[in-house]
């Protein structure tokens, strides 16, 4: 058959194009090579503060439970396993393996040297203007396994 037609509607499929992780990684690598590491952080910070503004507002209102729910939702959606420990003043997120990193590793995409900034810088940005701070305690660049900590800022 040399003539074919395909008609698809948005409702026919789930929105889950994991190759996008590779494109983001390529963007981070490009920024790093051409403008330096601080540009990578500045870009990610600017994006996160702007795009996640509703989440940041929610964190300010409801505390760390808002972040816990955010992480549980995004990792579950991409098949990532995490463990969270939440108290009033602290949230620990243990990521078994980052779905983004694993997808790139499994499909031969280059993982940018500064890809961990999608955790470190973005998490710090999520805390901007809230009573909390973020810390990336552990990070394995091979798998994206990480321990992320959020805690109430000392007053």
């Amino acid at each position, binding site marked *: 058959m040399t*003539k074919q037609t395909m008609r698809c509607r948005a409702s026919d499929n789930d929105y889950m*194009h994991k190759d*996008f992780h590779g494109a983001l990684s390529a963007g981070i690598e490009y920024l790093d090579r051409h403008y330096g590491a601080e540009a990578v952080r500045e870009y990610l910070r600017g*994006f996160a503060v*702007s*795009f996640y503004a509703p989440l940041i507002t929610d964190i300010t209102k409801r505390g760390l439970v808002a972040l816990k729910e955010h992480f549980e939702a995004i990792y579950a959606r991409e098949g990532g396993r995490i463990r969270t420990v939440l108290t009033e003043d602290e949230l620990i997120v243990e990521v078994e393996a980052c779905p983004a990193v694993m997808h790139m590793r499994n499909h031969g995409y280059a993982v940018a040297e500064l890809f961990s900034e999608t955790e470190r810088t973005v998490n710090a940005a999520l805390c901007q203007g809230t009573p909390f701070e973020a810390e990336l305690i552990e990070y394995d660049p091979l798998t994206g396994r990480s321990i992320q900590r959020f805690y109430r800022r000392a007053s």
Partner: protein
Amino acid sequence: MIPCTDFVPAYSALFSYLEDKGGREAVEGFWNYLSDNFLTHLAELVKEHGIRGCWLYWSRTLNEEAADFTMELDEDVGEFRLIMHVCPSKARLLEQKHIAPYPGYCRHCDALYRRVLEPLGYQYAIDMSKCDEAACELVVRGPVAGIR
């Protein structure tokens, strides 16, 4: 982690950031880099399957992106047509009222794919006159089956 479902706004923000840093040239420089380093699969498919490579490439990506589209392949005349009724990327950007999308967001598709297909001998045309409605139409014409 920035989930892949938040990639499009992150991508748009990257274009804006690059333009602030180095003007339109900086954005286009990145698109060229991305095309050369990230779209190798499209090039491989077209080299191996001819015009059908376009069909194979977009069959996977557009379904994963939950796009609303019609694709037509006519290998007798060597034509591939993609009618994007609702582009999932642009539609998502238009939905986000609290961010300002990069004004030339849709131009990246033209830049990325043209750079892959034209050097392989294919004609590439895209009508972006309905980008504000998240719609576009792309046509690739190339050698008929067996002649490439």
